[in-house]
């Protein structure tokens, strides 16, 4: 699989050390264009740490390439601008801004040029981009709402839209479906398919195994900071090691 020209995101030997704990241990993954890749594992396995490392929020060793461009010494906001976007477990929307304005933050950057644009006539925001991203997650009608007026599930979808807007190449989703009920979760699966079909690669972390096994093309399994298995969803779900990681190996009494 390596060397695949389709590969967008490639990490090699990502390790993260927290105090004395090795939270990530030489993690290597690949995500291709229009591909949905799952990353699963029990609580505390190091999945979120991995996303933090890849997106520039946790100091790490190892290399990260986005479409051949090395990103490991690039600050977080530059990684986003280069097309590596993420969401957070808890939505993390900007509470003072409407949903559309939340997305707008990702579209037009502030700075001196932005300053001049603000002072002059209102800059033409990339309204179409924002509408498109919102419609991909089915939130067109919520554009003018504030985050605290939305249910937790919708807040997370708005977070996904914020990560999607602009020229996102790879999307890292940290438990986007937690807090959704079964139907919402299935619905989200469809939306995810549509998103991937529009081009970006997706790395999906979730506990909802139905969602992950349904929607992903490939799945990595992480435990104790290491990738312990990978492959097609059907193979992974029957892997004894995976079941052991999730449900615990039977204890001899």
């Amino acid at each position, binding site marked *: 699989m390596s060397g695949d020209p389709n590969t967008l995101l490639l990490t090699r030997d990502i390790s993260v050390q927290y105090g004395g704990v090795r939270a990530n241990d030489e993690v290597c993954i690949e995500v291709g264009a229009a591909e949905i890749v799952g990353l699963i594992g029990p*609580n505390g396995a190091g999945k979120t740490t991995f996303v933090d490392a890849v997106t520039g929020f946790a100091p790490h060793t190892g290399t990260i390439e986005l479409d051949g461009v090395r990103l490991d010494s690039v600050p977080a906001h530059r990684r986003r601008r280069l097309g590596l976007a993420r969401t957070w477990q808890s939505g993390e929307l900007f509470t003072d801004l409407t949903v559309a304005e939340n997305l707008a933050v990702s579209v037009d950057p502030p700075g001196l040029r932005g300053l001049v644009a603000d002072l002059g006539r209102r800059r033409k925001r990339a309204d179409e981009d924002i509408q498109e991203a919102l419609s991909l997650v089915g939130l067109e009608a919520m554009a003018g709402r504030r985050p605290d007026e939305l249910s937790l599930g919708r807040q997370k979808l708005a977070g996904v839209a914020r990560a999607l807007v602009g020229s996102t190449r790879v999307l890292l989703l940290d438990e986007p479906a937690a807090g959704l009920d079964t139907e919402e979760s299935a619905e989200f699966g469809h939306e995810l398919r549509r998103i991937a079909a529009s081009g970006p690669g997706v790395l999906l972390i979730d506990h909802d*195994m139905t969602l992950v*096994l349904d929607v992903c093309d490939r799945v990595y399994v992480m435990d104790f900071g290491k990738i312990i298995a990978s492959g097609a969803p059907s193979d992974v779900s029957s892997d004894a090691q995976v079941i052991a990681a999730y*449900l615990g190996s039977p*204890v001899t009494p």
Partner: protein
Amino acid sequence: MTETTDALEIRGLSAGYRGVPAIRDIDLRVAAGSILALLGPNGAGKSTTLRAAAGLLPALGGTVTAAGSPVTGSVERATRSGLCLIPDNRGVFHRLTVAENLRLAKARGGFGPALDRFPQLRPLLNRRCGLLSGGEQQLLAIAKTLLLRPRVLLIDEMSMGLSPVAIKQILPELRRLADEDGTAIVLVEQHIDQALSVADEAVVLHHGRVVLIGPAADLREDRDQIQRAYFGDKER
């Protein structure tokens, strides 16, 4: 152990965040000296149940009774009635030494009894807790809480981040605690098999409600029911 009443009785408990319930109408009873495993997928409401029972979260409805006295909604009242919670971050203080952690329990006779029970901690007394391994921290958390002489012990995500070896060390200690001291224990665990191996009874939560309840031994035989709740394929 002579008590016949339940050490912990939860009736119709609802609780949540920002006024939105995350658990609804939970009924649980745990007899003295027995262990209840509280299971369910992420977000099912296990931690919320424990936090509400321990008074960390205001209950939106229902009652919690520990050792015969009502404790709903106040940490102080819960602790006084002998209901103690070990939270999922273990509730140990990383910047304090092991000895200081143990001293915090206002125990008469010092923390000697805790060391008698967990002699592994003795050589670590002057080490800062943050430098201990996860398993040692969990032992310390249990030791510290035992000094408060709990009648009911709630443990959240007991094995999170612990190595299998450490888990196998700690689980028998819990069993001993239930058998010898008659403490009622509620255990929130992801590792189903391990939880069932030590528990007397198990309850599965899903979407904030109890969906399955039964003796641990039976559930261990028929794991399909539980596995369905975890790996989806839910019949609603």
